């Protein structure tokens, strides 16, 4: 499977995750969200950027708790919870937001 952004092809797996995290450009997130009929706001972008930074450092997506803590710090305490994250990413912050950010899918019993 492949995702086409501005005429350029990006390889993805069966579930639509980017095959190579280093290929990622902002257009990937925009194209993926358009397929889900979701419009990316500044809040979405902030989370996508945080995910990429965290991955760069630790080679894994952050745990939900780490993500909610970071959101609380950046966007205010009332937004530091999974409910808020699900309101932004209805398929789940771990899975949908990670996909937009070009991260591999978190696996296991999660």
């Amino acid at each position, binding site marked *: 499977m492949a995702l086409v952004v501005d005429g350029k092809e990006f390889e993805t797996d*069966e579930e639509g995750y980017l095959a190579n995290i280093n290929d990622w450009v902002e257009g990937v997130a925009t194209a993926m969200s358009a397929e889900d009929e979701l419009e990316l706001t500044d809040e979405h972008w902030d989370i996508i950027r945080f995910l990429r930074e965290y991955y760069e450092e630790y080679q894994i997506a952050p*745990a939900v*708790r780490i993500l909610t803590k970071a959101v609380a710090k950046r966007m205010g305490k009332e937004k530091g919870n999974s409910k808020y994250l699900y309101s932004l990413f209805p398929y789940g912050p771990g899975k949908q937001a990670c996909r937009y950010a070009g991260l*591999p899918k978190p*696996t*296991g*019993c999660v």
Partner: protein
Amino acid sequence: MAKANFEVPELKDFIEIPVVTPDTMSHSKPYMAKPEFQIELGFPGELPEDWKDQALDAMGDLLGKYRSLQVYLDSCVKCGACTDKCHYYIGTKDPKNMPVARQDLLRKVYRRYFTFAGKFFGKLGIPEVVGAADFTKDVLDDWYSYFHQCSQCRRCSVFCPYGIDTAEISMAAREIMDRIGIGQKYCNEILGKVYKIGNNLGLPERALADTLEGLEEDIEDETGVKVRLPLDEKGADILLVTPSADFFAEPHVDGLMGYAKVFHEAGASWTLSSKASEAGNFGMFIGSYENMRRASMRIREAALELGVKRIIFGECGHAWRVAYSFLNTLVGPFDFLDPKYPVPQHILEYTWNEMKKGTLNIDKSLNDDMVLTFHDSCNVARASRMGDKPGGQFEIPRNVIKAVCNNFVDMDPSTTREKTFCCGGGGGLLTDDLMEIRVKGALPRMTALHNVIKDNGVTHMAAICAICKSQFTKVLPYYGMGMDQIVSVHQLVSSAMILTGQNTDDDEDE
């Protein structure tokens, strides 16, 4: 919640036995593992030309190794007792999800090639008169589909007068498929991560250390007490092996903080291990003794390297089954551990013992905002025990919940204890590509839960398995309930515990 692209079953007052509707789930097939992941696990990368011969060789091998498998295949009398007992049949109406029909997918091939009657009538071209069938590609496709619609929960075996265990038949079928290069992506890629990184998540040591540090800070912020979550601490008495979801997901992580608080108050010397940073063992789901052994070996090695005296398992259903039933056979003997303690021990046994000793300061009223019920996890309920008395796996979790909560209500007894319904996501099915079968398979549990919510004011359901917790988080919203209505048992312990020296409401100045 995500939109469903399938019909979500309607919740009724009772669990209804559906009218048989063939092939409703014949389209369900999980993604296949890529060749490199198959090879990593010791299997061929893709389907060979002589797959049938190789599959029959594999079946012959398993029949020789496991007499139980042959007994199960020979002894079914088609009495029908199991037909309405599987949550996947109840939720999908597909007759191939009746346990007997699922077994028959393998049994008919067994009968064709391993029994006199099957060979004889097979040669005449009428194998079906003796319940046998040629092993064709269509049959193989059915195997891949329907043996990935079984969570190996063993509920059917409770009702079978012969004790036939469909779980073992499912495991054998998956092992045979793996041996001809047909593997499931979810299970097999995860096993690869365990070998490479140490856990199902692929959580590297540095990220794990950082996560644990963050949790220590959180506990201190909340209570004012320094509670440690030690990693790779040599010379600790206890090695805690827990599912990696406990480091990552909600509500799992709240349970992990609960274990840490219990150890802290008990004054225990304990550690987690970056090598054995996973309790789960998907080798069991794919029926592969070799992979189950390889995944278990990390626990033995970690215990030896760290020099611990005891091994305790965190809240994980199938891990406890592997640990309780097979660990000693797989990677024993554990003669280097302290013989005063069971090998291995469940965290709930530990916590319950501490409660009986009176080490923990509990204020039950701190959980008064909740009315709890308890979901017995299938692998704990039907494939293991806990403590030193029969039925301990049912009593100990309930005892612990009742010791920390004033409000507890059990669900319909035809859905609890040894008759518990699977959450719908066990046995290697907890993957997005199987969401339809997961949601439909959760129907009986959702029905029973919905009834206690309606009739008894239940607000939350507690569980002791990482898969159950993740599965319910995902499927509860499909049935109109909240994803946060599922909690960890040790999360309840944690929220009712008052640590020695803990800040109380009175001295909080915010």
